[in-house]
């Protein structure tokens, strides 16, 4: 297979005596769409924050784009894109200003920035709306915009934290079109979600339960090994054990 763009070995994060992420080990290959699944509170966001340099692990090893998560977080940040659950665009800036801001932050300037900006606007059909404040546009637009801005500088990996919450089914699918297109261009997509049907869009999926990875494979193979008809069933089987333990 291709290079490994994310590698983790016994990665752990504890908060006091609570272990949020418990010795997880996995690899993600270049160009994959990797789904990181789990119930709320299973540890997905914590794990993702460690990989994107927002949080220091308590123990274990990990590297992203070849850089160590303990000592080289700033280098990691140059090579990744990130979209948080809140989308994190500046609501009091226009669509265009947000693009120019984040493009500039990642070192895009001059003609290159202009070209990428126009391409983005064209792709999302927002050319006529570029002067609108982000606070005034519908949720679906914000979502697509946040994603497009996250990959504007063509990072090696883009991290998406529950990016499709709350939008209608058509918008959700249009969003996954964008993810497909990004992966086709060679950008590795690391996405967390609790929509099980979205798990099917991924090349491989891992399922986190109580801070541990309980399953890691392609959706098809997972369904076979768990004798399940859908990813939802696979998840139910794995999560059922946890719910009994958790409370």
């Amino acid at each position, binding site marked *: 297979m291709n290079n490994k763009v994310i590698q983790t070995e016994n990665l752990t994060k504890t908060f006091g005596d609570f272990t949020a992420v418990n010795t997880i080990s996995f690899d993600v290959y270049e160009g994959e769409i990797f789904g990181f699944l789990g119930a709320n509170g299973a540890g997905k966001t914590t794990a993702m924050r460690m990989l994107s340099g927002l949080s220091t692990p308590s123990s274990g090893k990990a590297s992203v784009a070849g850089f160590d998560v303990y000592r080289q977080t700033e280098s990691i940040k140059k090579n990744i894109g990130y979209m948080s659950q809140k989308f*994190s*665009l500046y609501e*009091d*800036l226009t669509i265009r200003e947000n693009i120019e801001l984040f493009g500039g*932050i990642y*070192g895009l300037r001059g003609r290159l920035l202009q070209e990428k900006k126009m391409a983005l606007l064209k792709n999302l059909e927002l050319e006529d709306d570029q002067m609108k404040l982000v606070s005034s546009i519908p949720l679906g637009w914000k979502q697509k915009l946040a994603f497009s801005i996250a990959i504007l500088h063509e990072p090696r990996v883009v991290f998406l934290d529950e990016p499709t919450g709350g939008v209608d089914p058509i918008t959700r699918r249009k969003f996954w079109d964008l993810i497909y297109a990004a992966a086709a261009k060679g950008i590795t997509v690391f996405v967390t979600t609790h929509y099980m049907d979205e798990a099917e869009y991924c090349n491989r999926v891992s399922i986190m339960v109580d801070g541990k990875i309980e399953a890691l494979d392609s959706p098809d193979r997972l369904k076979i090994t768990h004798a399940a008809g859908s990813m939802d069933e696979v998840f139910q089987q794995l999560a059922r054990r946890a719910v009994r333990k958790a409370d």
Partner: protein
Amino acid sequence: MHILLVLLKKEFTQILRNRFLLLIMFQMPVIQLLILPLAATYEMKNISMSVVDKDHSSYSAKLIDKFTASGYFKLNSYADSYEKALESIEDNTSDLIIEIPENFERTLIREKKADILINANAIDGTKAGLSSSYAASIIADFNKDIRETLLQPGKLNPAPRISITYSNWFNPTLHYPTYMVPGILVTLLSLVGGFMAALNIVSEKEKGTIEQINVTPVKKTTFIVSKIIPFWIIGMIIFTLGLLISRFVYHIYPVGTYGTLYIFAMAYMIAFLGLGLLISTYSDNQQQAMFIAFFFLIIFILLSGEFTPITSMPDWAQKMTKLNPLSYFVEVMRLVMLKGSSFRDVLTQFLTICGFGVVLNTWAVLNYKKTS
């Protein structure tokens, strides 16, 4: 550097778009400077007095006249007895009681001295203190008058007469705005520097946009500088606005140079912005930031010498003012505006403020963690 410019463009765009913020930042100083010095003044007028005149002599009448002629005192009532006069204090119709005993004139002429009683309502301590001191100076003046009439020079008391005239140095007319305006300017700058910058950063924390910045290669120093510069510029604009109002509305011209004032103000803003940033690194939401900022601001203002002199504070409080950046600024403002101090004269204060700036800003940068 390019990233800094990009961030600055964002900050200015956001600030200029925030109508409410702009309103507060520019109207607030104007209103404060126009209303406060005129309204919150120590000059007492219309002190209402109740007189118990048991003598009804020409001297007692003269004394009362002197009070009312001064312009500060207003005769509320003549009371028959001290108890009656006390009632008027209790129902708040008078602030001061003057009791002139029986045989006042006779005692004065015969024994060359007499006593009168002045009682001031001290529920408002400041008012009582000032009323009493006005009364005392009016009486001193009265004494001067009667001395010249009662004591012929050389006959009874050959001691040389020393008359004392006094004037208030640097603010001869005790023009209250001259005294207050520099202090108010300092408070305004502190509010903009301390509050606004702190709230700005914390609101990014609340909205989640700070996380988006943390995940980019932007260095934290760059980010912090991008927050300092816009508010620093706003602070300087407000300072200029304040000085213009002082000049054209209150006719307060600095005896020293504007240059000295500006250099100090610039250093002060950076120091206070550092404080604001530091507060924001310790706050998770705007409510917390506001309370912490308020806490500091109120203590700083009360202990700055703006309203009450530092020298009359107890020792421990005086020591605390050394840690208060506001006290240095208030001092320098008054020194430069009223006394005409040069930059060299206030060099110590300037260096102290620079020290504050370095410490606070460094602390803020160190405390701000992109990775938690």
